[in-house]
């Protein structure tokens, strides 16, 4: 198992699924988005994985960051499961899905077990 952490998120790779947990109360600016993707790609080392993104801590995603993530956010990912809970994280994931049409299968879930179940189809 490998794990890294930057100012925005904690990443854990268990060999099958990539887990990304965003820090509580973060605002994703363009610089943050670039760092978030770059660190993920570095951790993955050229291998594609399904990813479980816990976005419950995200407070805001700036427009330039949304545009960046729409284009670059799915590189080297087989599928994405968002963990949402409060209305805030729920609308962020809904807005992302509606406006960006991600190139890989992407869904939102209220708990980790359902999210992992969804991702097992893409191992």
């Amino acid at each position, binding site marked *: 198992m490998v794990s890294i952490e930057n100012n925005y998120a904690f990443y854990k790779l268990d060999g099958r699924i990539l887990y990304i947990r965003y820090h509580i109360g973060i605002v994703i600016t363009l610089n943050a988005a670039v760092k978030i993707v770059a660190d993920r790609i570095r951790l993955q080392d050229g291998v594609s994985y399904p990813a479980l993104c816990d976005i419950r801590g995200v407070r805001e995603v700036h427009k330039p960051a949304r545009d960046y993530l729409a284009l670059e956010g799915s590189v080297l990912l087989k599928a994405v499961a968002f963990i949402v809970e409060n*209305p805030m994280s729920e609308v962020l994931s809904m807005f992302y899905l509606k406006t960006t049409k991600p190139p890989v299968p992407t869904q939102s879930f209220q708990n980790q077990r359902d999210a992992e179940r969804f991702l097992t189809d893409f191992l």
Partner: protein
Amino acid sequence: MSKKKRLRRIKDVLMEMGAGKFFYRIERSSKSDHVEALISVINMMGEEIEEALVHQEYVNVNESIKHIVLMNFQIDLNGKIKALNQQACEILFYRPDEIVGQTFMSFLDETSISKWKKNLKNLLKKKLVDTSLNLTFKTRKGLLVPSACYINKLEGKSDDEESFIITVVKHSKKQVELEDYLKTTEPQTIKRHRLFKNLPLIKKEKVRLNSEDIAKIREARDFLMNNLEKEFPSLKELALQFGTNTFKLKYGFKELYGISVFRFLRNERLRKAKILVQGGNCSFKTIAYQCGYRSVPTFTNTFKSVFGHTPTELRKKFSSEDF
């Protein structure tokens, strides 16, 4: 901020949007409730619509040019507002006499105040300055107006004559004035207007696209985006795959996205390659294959011609920078 106050701001911002002004935003709080979620969606919607007003997917059609709203402030060297234009008062919901004489920063939000203070110090040290800064204005009602501010320092004979001019350009959906302007202006003049200078000129004869054609071209674009590693079939095969013809795909694509199919594909492949080069230890051979290049030298040469660095150089550069 109380729920009632936040709901009042939602109402205010929606009223403004209804009047075609999509540049107002609602101040965010640390809450994560339904009201906050609604505020977040309204802000994001405003950003999307505001951008769509300027760029409506068609890269350059006359309809996409909208009414321009301008805020102009003249500021003295102490940071006080000496004069401003009528539209600035309307946007901020203040009378001119309530603004003139006040400090510029009293109309900014908290983050922008510290940003402005810091920049003002630097601006005062220099003689003639032309620069830009992202600042967020706060209206009387508490709505936010994030803006790119263009700042020019004007030189004078004495300190009293020196001042700053701050210009903010916004777009709204009210088209009347600009349409009048377009009617009375010669086409040649319109082409040279600074707003359109960097946009490609439209030729008179262009392919006619209906909504079905546009949907097919969009699908073809999405297909290319999601299959960057695959060999490009051919324009003809791609057109057939999406039920259109080569002519419509070729010229329609250019009209919608302002770029040829091949150039688009190359750009997207290289964009993906750049991300993979910067962010990992993956071999360049693997990256070349993942981005649709069957030969590493071709990949390296194209990469260098676009980014000015070979993949090796860029990887080194990126890993040495503390981004």
